[in-house]
């Protein structure tokens, strides 16, 4: 594929799916997977733009950093979810609502 458009469309679709996952999933781990989709669409965008717009490595470099950040975020989020599960034996985000809105 030697044009930018297919990559952008794919990234757009992945981003939208990620946002829908975040909105509709009730399981906290599911929401986290949605976040992962969003971040991967960002990576795809950066790499595609680096190849077709910038012709340099800047974008690819940023995507490597974002992969690391996503891993760090997932580690912390899973630790928090595990702790919630210990206290409440559920990971349903709608069930975790001690505080009123």
């Amino acid at each position, binding site marked *: 594929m030697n044009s930018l458009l297919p990559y952008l469309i794919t990234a757009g679709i992945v981003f939208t799916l990620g946002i829908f996952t*975040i909105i509709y999933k009730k399981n906290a781990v599911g929401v986290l997977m949605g976040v992962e989709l969003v971040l991967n669409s960002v990576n795809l965008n950066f790499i595609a733009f680096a190849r077709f717009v*910038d012709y340099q490595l800047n974008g690819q470099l*940023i995507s490597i950093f974002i992969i690391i950040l996503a891993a760090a*975020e997932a580690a912390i989020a899973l630790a928090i979810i595990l702790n919630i599960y210990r206290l409440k034996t559920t990971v349903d985000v709608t069930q975790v609502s001690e505080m009123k809105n």
Partner: protein
Amino acid sequence: MDNLSSLSYFVPELFLSAAILVVIVLDLLLKKEQKIWTGIVSAAVLVISVFLIFQQYTMPASEIFRGMLVLDSMAAFIKLIAAVSSLIIILFSLPYFDDKSEYYVLILITTLGMFLMGAVNDILMIIIAMELVGLMSYVLTGFTKRNIKSNEASLKYILYAATSTGVMAFGFSYLYGLTGETNLIKIQQALMTNPPHQVAYFITLILILAGIGYKVAMVPFHFWLPDVYEGAPTTITAFFSIGPKAAGMAVLIRFFTTVVAHGSSQAAAFLQNLQVNTPQLLAVLAVLTMTFGNVVALRQTNIKRLMAYSSIAHAGYMLMAMVVFSPQGYKAVLFYLVVYMFMNFGAFWVIITISQKLGSEEIDAFRGLGYRSPYAAVAMAVFLFSLTGLPPLAGFIGKFYLFAAVVQGGWYVLAVLGVLNSVISLYYYAYIVKQMFLRTVEEQTPVPINLYEGVVLTMLLVPTLLFGVYWSPLLRITEISFNLLY
């Protein structure tokens, strides 16, 4: 400037990084009852870094690390706010977290992240610095592991913040695609020479605002804030209300002055060039932010939640001054950040000490406090009136400069809406004061505050009173603190 010669411009950050490692090692060496020393060492580290930051004021403004960061006086100013606010938070925490050294390490790492946020000059650095602050904040929010509220706040925070960061990064990827650059100043030059498609640029801007807006608690990206403020340990709530918010404001100012509108006289031409009405968009968001914060604060019964909505409202006032896109507006924001730091920390310190003793965070628990703990109650009244913006307190001067900048920019309607909002805020601030002084309780058991609490309270009360009548030194500092590199 290349990496090696940049190091001499990076001394406070290097010192803080080394200190973090020292505190971690110290934690291993100390026995459980001696762990409070890690807190004291952390406070000392921050005092030293304040002096190191003052030295940076004399350095020439320059790009460091091949344009990844900049060192100018605004970066130094934000570092100063970050270091001082973390120092005050450590002083707040010493009586309550005396056996947990991780807590102080996490605060120091957050401070390092805020140092970087004030100096960002590249898309990559914006993402990394904001994540560094964010990741530590999630852990700090859930720090009291056995408390379900704290855990819930932490879960909501991380899910919401991770989404916001993802959306912001998506916006940045489009900005990179539109310009082919990652350096902010090069992005600006590319936007000037080849104006991008209007719709694409608008979408990019909205996506980026969503990410930075969540950090400064801008409506409609504020949903995480009330729950996080209520659930987190109160010292951490106080921390979030100043440190990360000031750093977020710094990123916003940096992004606006370098990418969206140049700080110089070209601003108007550049904005027209892009055909996107950023000031109008920001004005609407600012009005929404302050109105929402103030109106919802009216019917809160939990004082931490009330302070959460009040902090949303104050973010709105600061955004209002940014709408004018002039150095005056940005200087007013920097001035307000300092004033807000003292008065908000003061109010939080009274809440921390008193609610601990009363065993309740409800506003009703403060009933009759004026007779039970006069000094704390009078100080609280001063802080609350200062937050409202009544003369002759520091909050009035801060708000005066914000409104002056808005009026000078010709945004009269915005200024009127801001003043109306201040009037609304008087109602709920004065309600607490009324509970403290005009209502009495049956048994008036005194609520004593000890010497340490009194000293910290006085340290925050004096600037709040002093800057209300003699603010020219502070004004001079903010004047010299807005010599941006670009």
